[in-house]
């Protein structure tokens, strides 16, 4: 079938432009096969990364029809099903663009230096002590190994990093790929640096608290790593060890659950006061809330009262029962 490949092309430090290549392709072909044919038959100057053709090496990640994906994994026919704007009058189109959050070197090739530096920042290696080869083999139970399954599938393609909303506004945020790897290190029974790692990943917003839970990493990951859920597992480990005075992100989580225990629903006024001003201990925090409070009062938006859920008692005892069960499991 006839398909138009619209490729966003760019040279370093110049504005991007669209180049359209008409191609007669088998709908069963992958997008990568299409790009290869363009390069071999139509335009040898088109630049893109590729290697294994088999969803293993992670080289050919790019934005296909608006989201980051592996060109060797996505089939032409599926892309055309996704293409909602097909009209009878024109040929079906597939738009291919370079990944985001990384500068373009040429066409679909991006500079991934920061991606690799950010991975390095989480010390993505099992600790040196644990790597000392024992007399016999390392022993790990199937259950211990299973905690590494999902993050272990990562092929470092960059799709998650490319879409990450937090990375876009926070250049220090190490990104979903690095934090999924961090989870793999924290959960590895052989690693001896768990506590030091958790301190590191707990810092500021470069680590786990920088994640804004936009779910884009989960949505685009071609390997089912679900980095956002792995980030959540690192947060669980931190929250188990820290109290509300540790930091505002930790307090945010602790106060949230406490308030639901009190009222079934969240009382937003108390939440803001307790989290941001730390029960009036953080005066700068308190002052930062004042304009919002006044503005909401002025617009009639400020909730003057809070009505607890009629199921508050049940919810409180349910949450407490879950907390008891969880603490028994973590003591084991």
């Amino acid at each position, binding site marked *: 079938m006839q398909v138009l490949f619209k490729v966003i092309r760019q040279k370093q430090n110049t504005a991007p432009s669209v180049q359209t290549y008409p191609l007669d392709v088998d709908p069963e072909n992958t997008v990568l096969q299409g790009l290869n044919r363009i390069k071999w038959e139509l335009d040898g100057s088109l630049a893109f990364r590729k290697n294994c053709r088999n969803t293993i090496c992670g080289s050919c990640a790019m934005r296909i029809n608006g989201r980051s994906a592996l060109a060797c994994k996505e089939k032409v026919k599926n892309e055309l099903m996704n293409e909602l704007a097909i009209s009878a009058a024109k040929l079906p189109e597939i738009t291919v663009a370079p990944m985001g959050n990384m500068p373009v070197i040429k066409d679909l090739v991006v500079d991934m230096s920061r991606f690799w530096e950010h991975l390095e920042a989480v010390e993505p290696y099992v600790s040196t002590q644990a790597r000392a080869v024992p007399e016999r083999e390392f022993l790990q139970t199937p259950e211990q190994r299973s905690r590494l399954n999902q993050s272990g599938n990562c092929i470092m393609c960059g799709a998650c990093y490319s879409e990450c909303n937090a990375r876009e506004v926070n250049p220090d945020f190490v990104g979903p790929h690095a934090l999924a790897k961090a989870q793999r290190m924290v959960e590895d029974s052989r690693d001896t640096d768990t506590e030091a790692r958790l301190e590191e990943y707990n810092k500021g917003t470069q680590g786990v608290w920088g994640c804004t839970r936009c*779910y884009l990493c989960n949505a685009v990951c071609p390997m089912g790593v679900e980095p956002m859920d792995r980030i959540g597992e690192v947060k669980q480990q931190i929250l188990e060890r820290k109290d509300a005075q540790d930091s505002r992100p930790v307090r*945010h989580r602790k106060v949230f659950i406490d308030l639901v225990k009190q009222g079934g629903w969240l009382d937003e006024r108390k939440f803001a006061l307790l989290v941001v001003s730390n029960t009036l201990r953080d005066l700068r925090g308190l002052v930062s809330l004042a304009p919002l409070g006044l503005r909401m009062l002025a617009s009639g*938006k400020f909730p003057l009262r809070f009505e607890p859920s009629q199921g508050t008692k049940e919810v409180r005892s349910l949450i407490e029962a879950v907390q008891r069960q969880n603490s028994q499991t973590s003591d084991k």
Partner: protein
Amino acid sequence: MPSKMLQYAYYPGCVAQGACHELYLSTAALTQALGIELLELKKAACCGSGTYKEDSQLLEDSVNARNIALAESQNLPLLTHCSTCQGVIGHVDERLKDYQRTHPAYIEQINGLLEQESCLSYGGSTSVTHLLWVLIGDYGIEALQERVTRQLSELKCAAFYGCYLLRAQKSLPYDDPFHPESMENVFRAVGATPVYYRGRTQCCGWPIASYAPTQSFTMAGTHIQEAIEADADCMVTPCPLCHLNLDSRQPEAEKVIERQLGLPVLHLPQLVALALGVKPDKLGLDQHVVSTQPVLEKLGVR
């Protein structure tokens, strides 16, 4: 219009009972105008907005299994009007339904906890749906179109979906998560013109607003500015948490991105109810931080 009356177990969520009371009002006004009956779940609890899960998966599952069981006991689908509530409770429901077959021991653990604390147990017998999906699917877009008494033809609307509505559940009933059209289809049904811009499927920044305000408001501000540049008269969102960051924090967003913005942000039911002829004072349109007056003036509504 659907042949029999639509009924839902209505899960109001925290924000519509607090800082976005206008959403509570407008959902009530819209469903009344459409003849949709809501039975409010007075004993329900906060879904956790993704925060419970950071404490433990069991906490998120148990509290929301209880919420879903409340709707099950009335033999009604659970209705949300918040992208975040929908994503969280909808995902718990789809996962627990799956676990009934694949991990029955986990379901037993949850129901054990629920029974021990005198709560109803989870049966996986209902569904969890958002007001937007009710309009599109259950009520039907053509039926909605027929009920429009005030064409919003002057209005250019920029949808802001909210992450959880698009990406928290494994499967969506009406949308491709990367190219959603359900909000835009509602806009067209009420005579308004959809405005497309990158931010419509992105994060508003709310989850990190309490501790990373600059990053959070940069997200909000950038999306609002893009919508303005795409010539939008207003944003419309099916998520009150997005509304908090886009409307209530818009003055902070202006400071962070150093641009004047002033774009009104409407809740989905406010927009639709206006097209059905509901009076603005029934919709809390005066309870916004960014004035909605320009929208009303453009529509010639008083």
